């Protein structure tokens, strides 16, 4: 059975190779091939999953050793896979949602002449992401990590003819490099500390390692997670990444790749368990980001950017949970999976709306679409209810658990984290209700596009609606399926470990509070956007609103601190190079030249001078020899 693992990665990899290397001959059928191979990967995942369910909890981990990658003495890097419950969860999510999004893209990208290449990139992404979660060592994980970074870059900039897309791709790539540095440094630290990168030995050895080293590794891993998962302070790329085609936003920048950071932290749980300081930083990053993303989400009029803010915020929840340690790991992953369903569904819904509205993204120019796009409305609505945590839907179960665990952290920290999580839930309810109301309710505020075509909203083709429907099912039922009877907990516990937290508040109180803040958020949004007409151009807004529209000044901050600072640094270095370094070099050359010119005058052509020189030399030689003895 373990021999099937490689197929998971190989199928989409083959697709990528064929689609990207094959010529135009594949243009007509390429998208079907890509979808088929993604589906094949999903089928293999299901087979492996069924096999895994048939075994006892202790025997579920499979491993497959393909070959020795770098068989160097003292530096063993293998290409080997490890499939346990954690990996399995990701594999199912990635290949499942991935396949749906492949199907969706068939319709969405129908009129794009580079559709074959698009599917090649999607397959490449799937292969890299699966490699990331299947690797049995950090070095191979790093390969997958960089692979998804590459795929993300290619897909954000897929419409490279738009300067904004090209810039966004570059920005995502550069910001991610900062995080990647963190991962590579973490791997180097691991190698010097443990002498290996394999998960098993590294995680087992954490018990005997000093807390300082674990903290250093943990913080570097967190830096990596911040880059890939768009957490503060490396969050700035995610909003711009929405320049990519919407299926990309749904698959990579909402459901799968951006959760790689959560996977990394949960996978490295043993390291963080031994480094409480690093854990605290993780929870702080998560808490800050969940508020940051939520606030940004409130102010955006671009539907995809509002959803991007929401993604950031929801991943903040996951990171927060992961930072809580064993009381939170399972819930982080559970929220990750449910979020994968509803956020992918929301993005696909947004794509469907854009599809019907001449690619308009400004929600202020939507309005009243529920009658024109009923399927989209219903599926998007279910995703909406799920994300705000409406009781009974997916988000309710997973988010509630995280809030509960945050309070259970204990002490002042627990209160602060719990309150932040609750506040976040309220804001989530507010901004998602705003999105919902602006898009599907109220009067029509449709505007003709740049070429003067008035929009004719219509329901999207079947290839697009069917994935939305499937994801909507997930949005509705996944949470309950996982949460009721702690099914997900029992599934994942053998890998991540679990500890029940002792919350100062009872579970019922937390649930009640969550539902309460949810209602407040919804009500506020209704009061603001549901009752009266919505202006087509955004009002100036308060200071906070304006800041939030500019992503809370993240780019301004980066520009002032990093870009200007960097420019000053490089300018000073160039100055030093020109004056000091070049000065020394040119000065040396000039000195040598001058010395040479002077010394050659000694060579005057007279044998008598030469003889004197020899005589003097001999005298010095003799004197020096005698002197050496005297000394």
């Amino acid at each position, binding site marked *: 059975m373990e021999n099937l693992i490689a197929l998971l990665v190989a199928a989409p990899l083959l697709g990528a190779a064929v689609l990207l290397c094959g010529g135009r001959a594949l243009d007509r059928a390429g998208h079907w091939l890509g979808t088929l191979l993604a589906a094949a990967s999903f089928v293999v995942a299901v087979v492996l999953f069924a096999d895994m369910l048939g075994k006892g909890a202790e025997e579920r981990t499979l491993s497959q050793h393909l070959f020795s990658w770098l068989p160097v003495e003292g530096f063993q890097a293998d290409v080997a896979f490890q499939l346990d419950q954690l990996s399995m969860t990701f594999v199912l999510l990635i290949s499942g949602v991935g396949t749906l999004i492949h199907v969706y893209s068939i319709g969405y990208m129908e009129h794009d002449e580079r559709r074959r290449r698009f599917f090649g990139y999607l397959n490449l992404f799937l292969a890299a992401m699966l490699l990331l979660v299947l690797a049995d060592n950090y070095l191979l994980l790093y390969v997958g990590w960089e692979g998804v970074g590459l795929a993300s870059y290619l897909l954000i900039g897929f419409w490279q003819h738009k300067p904004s897309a090209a810039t966004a791709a570059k920005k995502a790539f550069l910001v991610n490099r900062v995080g990647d540095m963190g991962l590579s440094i973490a791997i180097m630290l691991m190698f010097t500390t443990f002498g290996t990168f394999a998960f098993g030995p590294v995680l087992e050895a954490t018990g005997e390692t000093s807390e300082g080293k674990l903290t250093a590794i943990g913080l570097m891993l967190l830096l990596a997670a911040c880059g890939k998962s768009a957490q503060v302070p490396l969050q700035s790329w995610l909003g711009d990444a929405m320049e990519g085609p919407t299926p990309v936003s749904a698959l990579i920048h909402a459901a799968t790749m951006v959760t790689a950071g959560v996977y990394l932290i949960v996978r490295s749980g043993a390291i963080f368990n031994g480094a409480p300081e690093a854990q605290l930083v993780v929870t702080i990053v998560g808490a800050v980001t969940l508020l940051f993303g939520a606030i940004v989400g409130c102010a955006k009029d671009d539907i995809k950017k509002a959803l991007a803010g929401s993604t950031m915020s929801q991943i903040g929840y996951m990171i927060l949970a992961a930072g809580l340690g064993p009381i939170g790991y399972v819930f982080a992953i559970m929220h990750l999976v449910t979020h994968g369903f509803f956020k992918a569904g929301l993005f696909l819904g947004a794509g469907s709306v854009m599809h019907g509205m001449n690619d308009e993204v400004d929600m202020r120019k939507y309005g009243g679409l529920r009658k024109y796009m009923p399927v989209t409305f219903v599926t998007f609505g279910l995703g909406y209810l799920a994300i705000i945590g409406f009781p009974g839907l997916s988000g309710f179960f997973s988010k509630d658990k995280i809030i509960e665990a945050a309070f259970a952290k204990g002490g002042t920290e627990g209160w602060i984290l719990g309150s932040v999580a609750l506040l976040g839930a309220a804001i989530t309810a507010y901004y998602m209700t705003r999105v919902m109301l602006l898009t599907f309710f109220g009067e029509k505020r449709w505007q003709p596009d740049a070429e003067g075509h008035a929009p004719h909203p219509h329901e999207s083709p079947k290839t697009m609606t069917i994935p939305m429907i499937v994801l909507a099912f997930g949005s509705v039922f996944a949470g309950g399926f996982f949460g009721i009877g702690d099914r997900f907990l029992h599934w994942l516990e053998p890998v991540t470990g679990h500890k029940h937290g002792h919350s100062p508040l009872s579970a019922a109180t937390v649930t009640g509070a969550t539902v309460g803040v949810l209602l407040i958020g919804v009500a506020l949004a209704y009061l603001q956007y549901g009752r009266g007409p919505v202006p087509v151009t955004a009002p100036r807004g308060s200071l906070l609103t304006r800041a939030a529209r500019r992503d809370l000044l993240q780019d301004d901050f980066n520009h002032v601190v990093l870009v200007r600072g960097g420019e000053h640094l490089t300018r000073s270095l160039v100055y030093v190079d020109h004056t000091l370094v070049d000065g020394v070099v040119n000065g040396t*050359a000039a000195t*040598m*030249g001058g*010395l*040479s*010119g002077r*010394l*050659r005058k*000694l*060579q005057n*052509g007279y*044998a008598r*001078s*030469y*003889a004197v*020189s*020899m005589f*003097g*030399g*001999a005298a*010095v*030689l*003799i004197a*020096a*020899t*005698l002197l*050496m*003895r005297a000394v």
Partner: protein
Amino acid sequence: MSASAVHSLWTTAADPIDKIGAPKIEYGQLSPTLIVIGAAVVGVLVEAFVPRKFRYYVQLFLSVVALAAAFAAVVGLAARGFGTTKAQIAAMGAIAVDGPALFLQGTILLAGLVAIFTFAERRLDPLAHGNRVDSFVAQAGAVPGSEGEQAATKAGFTTTEVFPLALFAIGGMLVFPAANDLLTLFIALEVFSLPLYLLCALARRKRLMSQEAAVKYFLLGAFASAFTLFGIALLYGYAGSVSYATIADVVEGNVSTVDPALAETMGNDALLLIGVAMVVMGLLFKVGAVPFHMWTPDVYQGAPTPVTGFMAAATKVAAFGALLRLLYVVLPGLRWDWRPVMWGIAIITMLGGAIVAITQTDIKRLLAYSSIAHAGFILAGVIATTPDGVSSVLFYLAAYSFVTIGAFAVVTLVRDAGGEATHLSKWAGLGRRSPLVAAVFAVFLLAFAGIPLTSGFTGKFAVFKAAAEGGAGALVVVGVLSSAIAAFFYIRVIVLMFFSEPKADGPTVAVPSPLTMTAIGVGVAVTLVLGVAPQYFLDLAGQAGVFVR
């Protein structure tokens, strides 16, 4: 010193002798030298008895055969183990037959053979009155520009004496690194120096410059020889012997009996130290170390270019061989005295050669200063005082000599109406006009600069490594810095050749006969082989690194 005085020194050096028996001479072990000297003597007879028009061919044939045979003899001796297990002292203690001696003799013979090819080149100069001529003057005795000279040229005379002269010089060079007592050393020095003085004076073009070079070389050489000889006398006074082994024993304090005739001087360290300094000075003069280098640029520039190449290569090999033997066999017990002094000499030689070369405008003078800098690099290996130091120096000498002969052979090809165009400005744009010749010269320059994949790099690396391991780290730093300075002027010539516009009245590149082509080809081949796959030769030099005592 008169012959009888030398004789008395010689005899008193040995044990008291009742009757003079016939000396025991190991002809087989001395055969390389004997073959070359014998051929030289035959060459003199050829000059006397063979008709003029056949002499060139007979001499060339004789020289090539003699050198090849001598080289075969060296190889035979080495194969029979005389370089390693059977190393011994031959000829009544006068000549050592050991690894370094055989290695250096082999190098000198091969370098000499290649040099003879460039001596014999007769296609570069335009025909003189319908006769093919080489680089040498028609008649050495004729006054430059005189009617006699014109008549000799018209008659088609050539100085075929250069072949026996070169053979005599090579014979002396073969003995020089093998000499195992101070008198043999001195005689070998004179035997190879005197023919070189003559050869320097024999340029066909720029005769006055050539004669000036010869006179300077002779005067300064004689001056240096006087120092050497006086140093030998002092050492004899110190040790009561001229034999290397005996002197070494006295230095190390292993001799208890004192010759009553020398009771007042023996064991006097002042004599030892002054004597050593003077003998070493004579050898440093030959290798061209600063401050005894001043003859080098003038002589290299004035001498006929084939002779310059021969001198620069073979003399250096022989002189460094002698220096190594003196320092490693005679003076190991004294190394704490001579090492600091040699440090100083090596440093100023490396830096001086490299710095002054920067502003040179004549290619031959440039190469002369380059050879001075290289002498400094080799000295760094000499100072290592380890077996690795010896073998690195042996390797460096072998690598360097072929590059040098090849480079000077290329210089003979670049000509204008006045003969060789040695001014650097005339080399501008040579790479556009004659890409092959410029490329070959660039290879030699890169080897001089010590760029990897050339023999220069391997040699320099070996020498510096030995020096560093021998505790001369600071010397290596200076060496690397000097290499950087030196790289400047080597690369400058390459830039000049390939990246400058050719001048309208620029020189032409003559097409040589296969003789010069062979010389250049061997130079390039050795440069690349020793650069790319040096291991066999490093091993060879490594095995040859032990002196017999």
